């Protein structure tokens, strides 16, 4: 193990490490801690310039009720869920199939198709922006939740295919061979043999895609406008314009916007990290 395990060092070093750990963490998360504290400050604190001192009162309920009652933040959150959940389902479903096809079968063009998905996933969004906006307009889906979700599904299929295909490649191929010998059809192999083995990959991708789509801001601004359809990221930005200098409200809004992916991450941490670090270990 590197660096040297702390248990094997002098007791002084051990103590120093144990003290340093929380200190460094507080420093690292200082921006978030500040936001969390500010989100419970009173408006009076903000106008009096008490940004960093101890809050004079804890207005947790007032501030969080205020953002939900005075702004469409509830609608923004709902929109985010309406875009994110279908995207997760759609992208994972499509990529289970593409990943299966590319991981199990040998055919001409296999690697080429695989590389198409991989390359597409790294492309700058700007090269897609104008045509995708036109396409969405032509389909009559501009400024709709489906229009945004449909694009996300298509784009995320690139990354998900890379992940799924590599995951399927690592499964024991004998299982599939054995099923074939038994006369099981290819579709049944997919459904009954491979899909049950994919559960960890499906879990990993679901949390990752949830976070990516929840946090998307660019496409939300390109394909939607207004509180009826915009997700929370775009909504938060427009609210920020209205909440001039009301940092307690901005902070409460930011916390609300950040909460779903954060909870998702904590619930599914292991899967999340497995997805992100794909390829980092050989």
């Amino acid at each position, binding site marked *: 193990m590197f660096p040297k395990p*702390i248990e094997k060092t002098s007791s002084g070093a051990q103590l120093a490490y144990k003290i340093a750990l929380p200190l460094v963490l507080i420093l690292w998360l200082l*921006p978030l801690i500040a*936001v969390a504290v500010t989100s419970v400050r009173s408006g009076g604190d903000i106008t009096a310039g008490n940004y960093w001192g101890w809050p004079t009162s804890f207005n947790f309920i007032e501030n969080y009720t205020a953002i939900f009652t005075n702004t469409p933040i509830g609608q923004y959150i709902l929109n985010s869920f309406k875009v994110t959940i279908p995207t997760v389902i759609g992208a994972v479903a*499509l990529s289970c*199939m593409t990943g299966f096809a590319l991981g199990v079968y040998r055919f001409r063009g296999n690697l080429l198709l695989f590389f198409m998905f991989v390359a597409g996933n790294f492309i700058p969004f*700007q090269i897609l922006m104008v045509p*995708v906006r036109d396409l969405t307009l032509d389909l009559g889906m501009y400024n709709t939740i489906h229009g945004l979700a449909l694009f996300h599904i*298509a784009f995320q299929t690139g990354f998900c295919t890379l992940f799924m295909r590599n995951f399927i490649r690592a499964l024991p191929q004998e299982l599939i061979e054995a099923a074939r010998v038994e006369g099981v059809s290819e579709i049944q192999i997919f459904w009954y043999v491979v899909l049950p083995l994919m559960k960890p990959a499906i879990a990993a991708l679901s949390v990752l895609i949830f976070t990516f789509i929840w946090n998307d801001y660019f496409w939300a601004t390109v394909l939607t406008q207004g509180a009826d359809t915009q997700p929370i990221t775009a909504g938060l930005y427009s609210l920020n314009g209205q909440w001039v200098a009301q940092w307690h409200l901005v902070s409460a809004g930011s916390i609300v916007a950040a909460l779903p992916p954060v909870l998702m991450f904590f619930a599914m941490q292991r899967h999340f990290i497995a997805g992100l670090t794909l390829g980092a270990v050989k």
Partner: protein
Amino acid sequence: MTTAALPDTHPPNPKSYWKRNQQRLAPWLFLAPGIAMFVLYVIAPIFQSISISFYAWDGLGEAEYIGIANYVELMDDEDFYTSLKNNVIWLVLYMLALPAGLFVALFLNQTVRGIRIYKSLFFFPFVISQVVVGLVFSWFYDPSFGLFNIVTGWFGADPIAILADERYVTYGIIAAGLWPQTAYCMILYLTGLNAVDPEQIEAARLDNAKGFKMLWYVVLPQLKPATFIAVVVTVIGALRSFDLISIMTDGGPYGTSSVLAFYMYEQAFSEYGFRMGYGAAIAVVLFAIMMIYIAFFLWKMYRDERGG
């Protein structure tokens, strides 16, 4: 109708077309929906953008073919060079996420009690939206009450309006971006460190290697896959930077914090009018730069596929 029942009576031979060819047909069946969506929304738009870049078009009226005029105009566009220069600054400074992430990973690579919670809390900045990160850092940089100026004030410095000062604005935004990116690199390195061969470490220790020497000669070579992925995601992240700029400065002051991704957006839909063709030309330039990295990544993948 009747043929469907046949296979049961005469097992191997007169199967339906599907049964005889399913191994050949199945992959295409599974691929069809994914390919259709991907081609429609990702592959075709790339070519459409390239073609739009040869037109003058406001997005509504008739597009007028103007050849390479958009690109010629780019060559003389000062804002384009500002954006390009900022992209280079982003690329270079974003790479700091690698050593920073490695450093944090080494710090956290212990087995004391509660370390798993520490690791996840350190990863936090990556999980939240860049919109939130942008808002938080704008607040930090506020010249009248921001924490940044309070802290620099302790050292006797005058307050600086980072985001309103063209000398510092890009660096201020990059610092905000480095926060989540460092967290990402940290996770990659933590995973990599887990896989480092303990026997090699022990052997090197017997040879009296320690500290930086150990890191450089024994550990880092084993972290190569993690470093490779970290470089790829960091380069792509740097070139894709858009959210933070849009949230924190909207490209200002006077376009000095713009990057190609933001400048393109601004040209294509902004108060200056909708210049889709010109925007597309900027996007093509960005795409060309990114293709260098994508090609490099694919080439490495191809080598691995052939090797393994």
